[in-house]
């Protein structure tokens, strides 16, 4: 293989976030409409590398992916050892808006998966006017706990192995093997307690069921794409949000809970028509 650089630029942004100094890792590629991407719980921005490398996306969109604090190459804030990391809807919304402002993004499109698919529902509810369009991948209004998340962070169980173990079945059985295991590798690399801390938002704090009916999925267009193999954010949950908000929902065949990462080509085939609508090309 001859050496080649990918068109992705990765940089560290120092900024005050949620009242504390932070050092955030941000990758981007492309030009045009800003498309701010949010990774899943316990993983990081590498999940979007298929998108960042696809010229069909980057010719019209500036794809921007940040690692949330505590995730990937973004550090936890100073003094992290003295707190238990727990993501809340308030902090998550604040983080996205503050980063978007710091990058001076003009009416970006925001797209999030899983916890990111949940938080974009909060953005659609509270801050829709700030966005050109909102895309929720694997979005459900609520997911009840179905296993004890304490297993994800205890010294007598390898947190990387168990985190990958609990999410492995959420990947479609038809996903390419290399992409499946890279998706799991991201989970294996998460810091101790980080996946569990994200799930506090996903399963406890971030219940938006009572506000779904107040979301207008048409004025700022809301698109929902969910893989048929996702048993965490179910297709029924997504279709229910679409019915109640006027959002446009697509059930993606042969995909699971990590579409952009487990099968980038399969996912991008579903995403391109959505992006074309957003830029008014169809």
């Amino acid at each position, binding site marked *: 293989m001859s050496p080649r650089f990918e068109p992705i630029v990765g940089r560290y942004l120092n900024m005050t976030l949620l009242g504390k100094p932070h050092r955030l890792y941000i990758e981007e590629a492309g030009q045009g409409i800003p498309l701010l991407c949010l990774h899943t719980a316990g993983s990081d921005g590498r999940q979007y590398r298929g998108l960042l490398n696809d010229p069909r996306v980057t010719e019209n969109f500036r794809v921007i992916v940040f690692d949330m604090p505590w995730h990937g190459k973004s550090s936890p804030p100073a003094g992290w050892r003295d707190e238990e990391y727990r993501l809340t809807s308030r902090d998550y919304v604040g983080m996205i808006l503050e980063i978007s402002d710091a990058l001076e993004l003009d009416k970006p499109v925001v797209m999030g998966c899983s916890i990111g698919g949940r938080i974009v529902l909060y953005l659609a509810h509270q801050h829709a006017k700030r966005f050109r369009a909102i895309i929720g991948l694997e979005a459900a209004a609520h997911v009840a706990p*179905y296993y004890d998340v304490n297993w994800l962070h205890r010294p007598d*169980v390898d947190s990387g192995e168990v985190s990958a173990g*609990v999410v*492995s079945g959420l990947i479609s*059985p*038809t996903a390419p093997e290399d992409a499946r295991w890279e998706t799991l590798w991201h989970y294996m690399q998460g810091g101790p307690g980080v996946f569990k801390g994200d799930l506090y938002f996903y399963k406890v704090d971030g219940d938006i069921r009572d506000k779904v009916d107040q979301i207008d999925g048409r004025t700022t267009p809301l698109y929902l794409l969910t893989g048929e*193999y996702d*048993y965490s954010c179910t297709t029924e949950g997504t279709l229910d949000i679409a019915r109640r908000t006027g959002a446009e929902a697509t059930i993606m065949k042969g995909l699971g809970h990590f579409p952009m990462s487990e099968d980038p080509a399969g996912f991008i085939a579903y995403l391109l028509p959505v992006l074309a609508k957003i830029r008014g090309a169809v």
Partner: protein
Amino acid sequence: MIERIPELVNADANLVRRGRFVNTTFMVEIGDAGYLIRIAEGRVVSVTPGPFITPSYSFALRASREAWETFWRKVPPPGFNDIFALFKGGLLRIEGDMHPFMANLLYLKDVLAKPRQEASR
């Protein structure tokens, strides 16, 4: 199909390596039929069918025959592709000492899914 698990697992050197610290006996129930699966250093030593008088095991996975047979298809449909999918869908019960189960989850999922390798559909 469950009786094929020892040969299929033990022939997979990487799976055995990944399970090299697993030493346990667990129960799988397929409808009314129980099987005790004994694992030593990642190798499946035995799959013993019931009935049992006083079975001793660390944890148990219980589901209907139909659920297991759908789980073991070459490409299982949504809701049947993973033991957690069965579990969340209310089709599988998991009981007992969860520590060996959770600590070795990736390995055990691959052990249990091994019969798919030989499925015709």
